[in-house]
């Protein structure tokens, strides 16, 4: 019920217990992952055997490879970062042009186009992955048959992963940026034009600063979504695995607490991004 109505004591207690239970449900898995990154045992399982940094720093005498010496894992973090940087750049650029197209452009079929742009969010990631995989191979084969060209980037690998992730993350960037552009007061632009500013100057001095929070926000979200994507990536991945695919493979085998150590690192990184974004949006308000 609502605060202005009397609530019986049992209902208050039940609500409090429910909230506590809900938060425990939310945070238990994360807390457990973080905790066992520091357990002095070869497997991430109870009992607690004491505190150690071995799973970060390594311990040759016990044959433990820590996160900072696990080149395979570090390499996959690097791969994920490269992919995420490419996807972010592409998505933010396309999101910006799409925002102007949808908010400023006047052309027949705009409504239909804006609905089609939402489609990538509705199509399951696995299907986006296989459709792009199949289409890219068809083009590669056609190029090979017709012109004898070997188009290596159309075979499973990082370029395809970037394209696959970009295909749906672009929609998210578009939504964020056009929502911001919609609230722009066009009189500001008109005033600048009346005062003799050129189109380019207006864009650079008025529109771009106005869009800045949305540009940064959509860049952060794009990076994070790309870094964490699994479904689409799994279908398109070649020899170099991004972090999620690498972790998935190791989790199936039953891995050491190094995975917990990576997870702690990921949690810290997401926390930094999240706090920056939250702080920024507070300030803008």
């Amino acid at each position: 019920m609502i605060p202005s109505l009397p609530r019986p004591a049992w209902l208050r207690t039940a609500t409090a217990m429910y909230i506590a239970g809900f938060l425990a449900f939310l945070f238990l898995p994360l807390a457990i992952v973080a905790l066992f990154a520091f357990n002095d045992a070869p497997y991430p399982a109870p009992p607690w055997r004491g505190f150690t940094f071995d799973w970060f720093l390594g311990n040759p005498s016990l044959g433990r490879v820590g996160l900072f010496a696990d080149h395979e894992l570090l390499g996959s973090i690097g791969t994920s970062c490269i992919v995420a940087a490419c996807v972010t750049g592409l998505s933010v650029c396309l999101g910006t042009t799409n925002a102007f197209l949808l908010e400023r452009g006047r052309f027949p079929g705009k409504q239909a186009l804006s609905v089609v742009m939402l489609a990538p969010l509705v199509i399951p990631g696995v299907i986006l992955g296989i459709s792009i995989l199949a289409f890219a191979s068809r083009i590669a084969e056609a190029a090979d048959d017709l012109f004898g060209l070997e188009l290596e980037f159309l075979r499973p690998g990082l370029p395809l992963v970037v394209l696959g992730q970009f295909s749906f993350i672009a929609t998210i960037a578009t939504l964020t940026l056009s929502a911001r552009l919609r609230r722009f007061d066009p009189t500001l632009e008109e005033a600048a034009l009346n005062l003799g500013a050129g189109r380019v100057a207006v864009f650079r001095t008025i529109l771009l600063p106005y869009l800045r929070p949305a540009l940064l926000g959509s860049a952060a979200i794009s990076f994070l979504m790309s870094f964490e994507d699994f479904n689409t990536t799994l279908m398109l991945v070649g020899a170099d695995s991004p972090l999620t695919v690498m972790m998935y493979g190791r989790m199936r085998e039953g891995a050491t607490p190094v995975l917990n150590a990576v997870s702690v690192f990921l949690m810290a990184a997401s926390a930094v991004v999240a706090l920056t974004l939250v702080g920024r949006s507070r300030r803008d308000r």
Partner: protein
Amino acid sequence: MFDGERQARWRARLALGLLLAPALIWLGALIVLPHVDLALLSFRARVGPRSYVASLAQYRTFFQEPLYWHVFVRTAVMSILATLLTLLLAFPISWVIAKLAPGRAGSLLFVLCLIPFWVSETVRTLGWMILLRESGVLPALLTWLGVTQAPVELLYHDATILVGLVYTSLLFMVIPLISSLESLDNSLIEAACDLGAGGFAILRTIVIPHAAPGITAGCIVVFMLTLGNYLTPTLLGGKNSQWFTEQIYTQFITRFNWEEGAAFGFLLLGLSTVMVVTGLKLTGQRFGDVMRRT
């Protein structure tokens, strides 16, 4: 003068073209054409090396092989179950955040709900695995408490898959629910209460009708995400997961049977579309509005 006008119009058209081109390339090359190609792929059968004929064989195989359509139906049913459970679990917390918790406490609770979803699904699933597996935390705790004699395996059950799916989906239900509950005027509830309505009557006649758009939006998104999930069912369900996306992966990547995999992909897409359209029809909403809500 006439010339300048023509030049301006020409320039506007050029600008529109420059803005339109990237959007069309993106949608055409990465969304529309690949799906057309996938459709063509699913309607052909291999008759020899590099020779194919148009055929419905792939879809026939799906219906003739019980394993395939069992997994399909199972995935659909489990996804619906997971969606309903998510709604049940998310509704009270959304109510608390939107109505009960005053100002700062409410936004703090909301941020707390958001935090786990900034972390990768892989990490969250790893947490559940450490918690639930036979040598894990919960079985050890149960044995220590004397509930079970020896540690029991809590992974690889259907219930485990459901827990994982509900956990992963919560946020996508909480956000649309909160936004639709916040717009509900408290005085309506006060009035109903003054007129003698009980809690259940208020919920049924005022709250749920008002929150219907949010409920639909949340359910649709959660259902789609659950249906297309791969990580959670395969890791928490192990060999028993039998999730349809896993079948697609097997056909496409393991067996290299792209024709069958393409057909499976379209069946999944069809199921997802049918459910979304039904949901929208039942509640009389438009797709674009629902998507913008989330």
